[in-house]
């Protein structure tokens, strides 16, 4: 690990009980407000799968590049620790991560422990009523700084939106076995404006998994 990686402060651990919940004691709980340099995003989805299967899919950290945008490699470094590599434009970001809470079929919480990213997050899986499968709720917190601003400005994907897109990809992969993609299709000349719009639309962020990974 480089000095740069060690110098980064750790993100704070999340509360011991599920923090991603939307209802607490019968009341609706709004998502946390951005302040003190921390940004929060909470997003959720109905997924046609069991909480157990979805937990297992999320917990398989080395398979995360199959559904998270721009994550090129996740390597297990211990039972609850892993090393993450992200390619954003021509920049590579790396960080270490540890799992703080690991409740099979119900909940996973994590935080970064050094590197180019300060982030912490949690996912909870709850059985949904009415045949809607499972409610997956993600709460992610990150510090704006080099990591976020680079992400936002270079690749045209706001980091909050990336969390939302990653849950969408996770759901699509769990329900259908693939993530819908429109990159690589034929088209006529885009012109200057069309090219800029592709970036604005987030279409330059490669839909996971990367094509070279799919081919193998």
């Amino acid at each position, binding site marked *: 690990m480089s000095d740069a990686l060690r110098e980064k402060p750790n993100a704070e651990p999340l509360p011991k009980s599920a923090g991603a919940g939307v209802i607490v004691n019968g009341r609706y709980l709004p998502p946390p407000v951005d302040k003190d340099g921390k940004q929060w995003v909470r997003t959720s*989805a*109905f997924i*046609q799968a069991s909480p157990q299967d979805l937990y297992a899919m999320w917990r398989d950290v080395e398979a995360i590049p199959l559904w998270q945008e721009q994550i090129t490699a996740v390597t297990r470094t211990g039972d609850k620790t892993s090393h993450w590599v992200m390619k954003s434009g021509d920049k590579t970001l790396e960080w270490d991560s540890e799992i703080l809470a690991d409740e099979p079929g119900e909940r996973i919480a994590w935080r970064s422990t050094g590197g180019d990213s300060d982030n912490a997050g949690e996912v909870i899986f709850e059985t949904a009523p009415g*045949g*809607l*499968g499972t409610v997956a709720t993600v709460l992610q917190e990150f510090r704006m700084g080099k990591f976020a601003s680079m992400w936002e400005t270079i690749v045209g994907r706001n980091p909050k*939106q990336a969390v*939302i*897109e990653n849950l*969408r990809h996770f*759901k*699509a992969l769990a*329900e*259908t*076995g*693939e*993530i*819908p*993609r*429109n*990159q*690589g*299709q*034929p*088209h*006529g*000349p*885009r*012109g200057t*404006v*069309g090219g800029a*719009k*592709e970036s604005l*639309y*987030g*279409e330059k962020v490669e*839909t996971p998994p990367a*094509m070279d990974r799919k081919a193998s």
Partner: protein
Amino acid sequence: MKAVCWMGTSKVETLTVDDPKLLNPHDAIIKVTRTAICGSDLHLYDGFIPTMEAGDILGHEFMGIVEEVGRGVTNLKRGDRVVVPFTIACGNCSFCKKKLWAACDNTNPNAHLMEAAYGYSGSGLFGYSHMMGGYAGGQAQYVRVPFANVGPLKIESDLPDEKILFLSDIFPTGYMAAENAQIQPGDTVAVWGCGPVGQFAIASAFMLGAARVIAIDRLPERLDMARSVGAITIDYSEDDVSVLTALKDLTAGAGPDSCIDAVGLEAHSTELQGIYDQVKTKLMLETDRPSVLRQAIQAVRKGGTLSIPGVYGGLLDKVPFGAAFGKGITMKMGQTNMHNYMQPLLERIEKGEIDPSYIISHRITLDDAPEMYKVWRDKKEQVTKIVIDPWAERKVA
């Protein structure tokens, strides 16, 4: 391959582009044998649908022969003849399981764009803006069809393409419009717009038991076609005709049991409100020209049903909601849940109950398409439906 590309408002070009390739495990590549221009493509041509970009391949009505399938495709093989629905559905999300295929959660790669604009995302569509998925369309020699296990309907019979092609959109769309109209035997149904969807709504309303169908348009060839299948017609452009009075006269003052708005956001109107909507949309104070919707709400009988297959894109002005509430009407609308209708309507075609090719007025090549977009938009040459053979050579005059 050759493909019809949107290059800007009122600008369509036939260009040579790369052939499509398999990108996902459930993709199929289809060699297109017939495709068509849809009335809703004219909304794109006129620039009413946001997030169309230069270079986008148009077309969402097509059929053809399976050329290649991805490793996850189990129910199609090379050589199969298929017709493809314009809405793309995954088959596995909670909406698909409820047969609300057009509300599929998993087929729009740009769902965030639609969420930003509308607060929700529906299924991806072929060739219908980046917001609706950014998928390349089928007015081309080849097309990539994602989620191919779910959408394409295999055609085992040797019926000609022209009898099958409209299962890709307009026949199911007209049929769902009639189904949404909640027709009871003996009912009177009024249909605004006698374009292709209106024609199929008229035919379907009779199939579902309507005693009388009243068809409203201004183009003689369309009104002739409507009368040929048994409808009573009103030409709203005639000087002495008021549609609301006509509909009252034809229903003993009560109004039609069901009204179908097969026109949508680019309605033309001979009344003062038509000028109002033209001005407001040009000033970007209104996105749609909802004169048909207003009229249909005013016309429908108390407790009646309003069915809306016509496309709306945004914010509507001066919709008489008080009348809608006061009469206690039911409104049903939305993109067609294609997958519910393709097989049963194919069976009706195979039994000879209907030959959907009766609406075709023009048969063209891909090279003719740019000119024909303009001709149809300008309502010239008595166009009712334009079908394209993507492999035909343009005849030199």
